[in-house]
């Protein structure tokens, strides 16, 4: 009996001790595999760097699963302090006023210096509200870039195409001649739609791409430039210049890794993974091509990937811990480590400078492409987009693009369908928030 109460007292002392010494916060994310290990490493280093706070990262599955888990937890009052939300889910979480504390407010209130100009240009406003206040802290930020098989291009005697015109008249025929499928690409909605609009500075939705909100946002996807693009893509497919291997990200990346496809449009965040693989050929990367017929001044792309949101409903001490973690995360050294290890872009100018000074890009020139492309001149429509139920809108796009590429529908019909269904979803979403 005595020993039991002693044990209880000891346990109580331990718990009490832990709670007075450290404020513990949780961080739900969707970074699996090697990325998850890098996240854990950052968390461990943060915990070791000071003794006031302790962060626990928890892997919650895919982006969609992490968001759903976060939402369910919020409704039950059990939300984590930090939730990772991906680009397509941004409207859901930013639209729910009171679900999160804007990261800018959080940092300022906790005495952390914040200047949005410190962040690289393509990163600044994607997760910001209509007034330009940063709501989510960009974390794993990437942009679509063009990877190519150096040997294949040499064999074909061509260089990486700057424009789609060059691709279709010079690069692709030469690559086909050399025995390659010229092009494949992952995530059609992200690269051939969202960033297509940004690269050509075309409006993607009304109300400033959806940022200024209102309940009447309409998608502007049914435009001539993108229809001409998809028409060209189907022609390339017939010519054997382009092949589509399915909706899954890896379906289209694998043939590039196997050396079957010479050029692959993917994420700058794929750089780390690709360099760790034994590909059997050298690869490099450059900017996404553009249509000269549409623009003579191609613009920047914007970020994909995900951001970290500070969930509301926690005490001041825990919020201070969250702010401290964000401060740690945006340090040039942390960002540089993350950038080097994963291939995601560094989100601040200072981290970019550090990577340059350290000679990272002299060693791996392709690692710089993503950030350079994000730093290209901005246009009127290049900061991103903000649309509700966007996960479903992407699903609709994926479905219709698949139908185009398997000959089940025409480009004209597909974009009509996307426009109609997307607008219906946008209208539904605005009703959920009224």
């Amino acid at each position: 009996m005595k020993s039991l109460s002693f044990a209880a007292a000891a346990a109580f002392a331990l718990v009490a001790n832990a709670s007075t010494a450290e404020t513990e916060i949780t961080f739900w994310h969707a970074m699996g595999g090697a990325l998850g290990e890098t996240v854990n490493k950052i968390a461990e280093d943060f915990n070791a760097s000071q003794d006031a706070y302790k962060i626990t990262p928890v892997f919650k599955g895919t982006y969609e699963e992490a968001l759903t888990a976060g939402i369910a937890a919020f409704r039950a009052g059990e939300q984590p302090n930090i939730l990772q939300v991906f680009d397509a889910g941004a409207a859901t979480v930013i639209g729910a006023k009171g679900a999160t504390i804007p990261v800018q407010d959080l940092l300022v209130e906790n005495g952390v210096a914040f200047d949005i100009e410190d962040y690289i240009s393509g990163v600044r406003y994607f997760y910001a509200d209509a007034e330009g206040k940063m709501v989510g802290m960009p974390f794993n930020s990437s942009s679509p870039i063009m990877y190519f098989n150096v040997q294949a291009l040499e064999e074909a005697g061509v260089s990486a195409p700057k424009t789609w015109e060059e691709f279709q008249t010079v690069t692709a025929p030469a690559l086909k001649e050399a025995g390659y499928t010229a092009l494949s690409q992952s995530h059609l909605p992200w690269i051939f739609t969202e960033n297509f609009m940004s690269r050509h500075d075309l409006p993607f939705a009304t109300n400033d791409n959806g940022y200024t909100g209102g309940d009447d946002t309409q998608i502007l996807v049914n435009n001539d430039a993108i229809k001409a693009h998809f028409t060209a893509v189907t022609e390339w497919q017939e010519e054997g210049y382009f092949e589509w291997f399915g909706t899954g990200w890896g379906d289209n990346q694998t043939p590039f890794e196997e050396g079957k496809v010479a050029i692959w449009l993917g994420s700058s965040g794929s750089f780390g993974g690709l360099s760790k693989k034994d590909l059997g050929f050298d690869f490099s990367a450059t900017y996404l091509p553009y249509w000269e017929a549409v623009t003579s001044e191609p613009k920047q792309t914007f970020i994909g990937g995900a951001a970290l949101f500070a969930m509301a409903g926690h005490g001041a001490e825990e919020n201070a811990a969250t702010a401290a973690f964000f401060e740690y995360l945006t340090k040039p050294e942390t960002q540089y480590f993350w950038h080097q290890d994963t291939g995601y872009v560094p989100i601040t100018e200072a981290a970019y400078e550090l990577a340059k000074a350290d000679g990272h890009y002299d060693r791996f020139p392709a690692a710089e492409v993503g950030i350079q492309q994000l730093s290209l001149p901005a246009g009127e429509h290049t900061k991103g987009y903000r649309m509700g139920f966007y996960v479903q809108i992407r699903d609709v796009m994926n479905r219709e693009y698949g139908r185009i590429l398997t000959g089940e529908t025409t480009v004209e019909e597909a974009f009509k369908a996307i426009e109609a269904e997307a607008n219906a979803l946008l209208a539904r979403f605005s009703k959920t928030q009224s």
Partner: protein
Amino acid sequence: MKRAGFTTRWLPMLLLLPQLAIITIFFYWPAAHAVQSSFFLQDPFGFGATFVGFDNYTDLAASSEYLKIARFTLLFTLLVTFFSLALALLLAVKADNVIRGAKTYRTLLMWVYAVAPPVAGFIGLIMFNQSWGPLTEAARAIGWDFKLGVNFTDTAAAMVLVSVWKQVPVNFIFFLSGLQSIPKAVREAALIDNGSATSRFWGVTFPLLAPTGFFLLIVNITYALFDTFGIVDTMVKGEPGNNPMTLVYKVYVDGFRGNDLGGSSAQSVVLMVLVLALTVFQFRLIDRRIHYT
């Protein structure tokens, strides 16, 4: 004879309570919740909800995409149910005839039962891999350029195949024990009266298997409608694109991926009604025509 029974009214109720509690918590309560939220459009975070009446249902009825998925689900259910029953019956009849090494055959046919649906889906993904899948190569050998995840029909065929493969063992176990419970005397009498093995099967064995078959029919329809979720999810890699999907998967896509709680609830209410209809059908219409021995 003495009738066994409870002496008090409260004890049986008490004994029933755990079961009733479970049904209430895990079925009636969520079901009521689903019905309720199907009449609202809700902010995912729960900050507000707008009453929209039957809009979620009329939207479904007006959506050609939803109707297309419903038609696919119907076809999928028919194919999966038919093939898993037919194949299992064939295998069971054959296995029943085997005397030597019967246990080995049975074990070989049954082990797939232990495979979880997502694992079955994953095996399908491997078998139908676009660049080196053995079944893709086999299809190519007969001139079928099989493309899982690209071509709608090919993906549907692969889904049916994997779902059938996964379900055959369960049916097989039931059919086999059904066959073995047919009295030897009946078989011998049939053997004397009737020469043809086929007519013996359809005239004697099959009717005696009907109760088992009927039970399995309902089980298989339910399986094809709901339990194939894991297979569908794995085979479309969580991103259906232009690939086929079933109604229950659509509930997941809209509710969990898309956070459209109202629309997703309406869809699950539709499915609930379907299950209800199936149950009524089971007990009212068919049950009477089957004679359990």
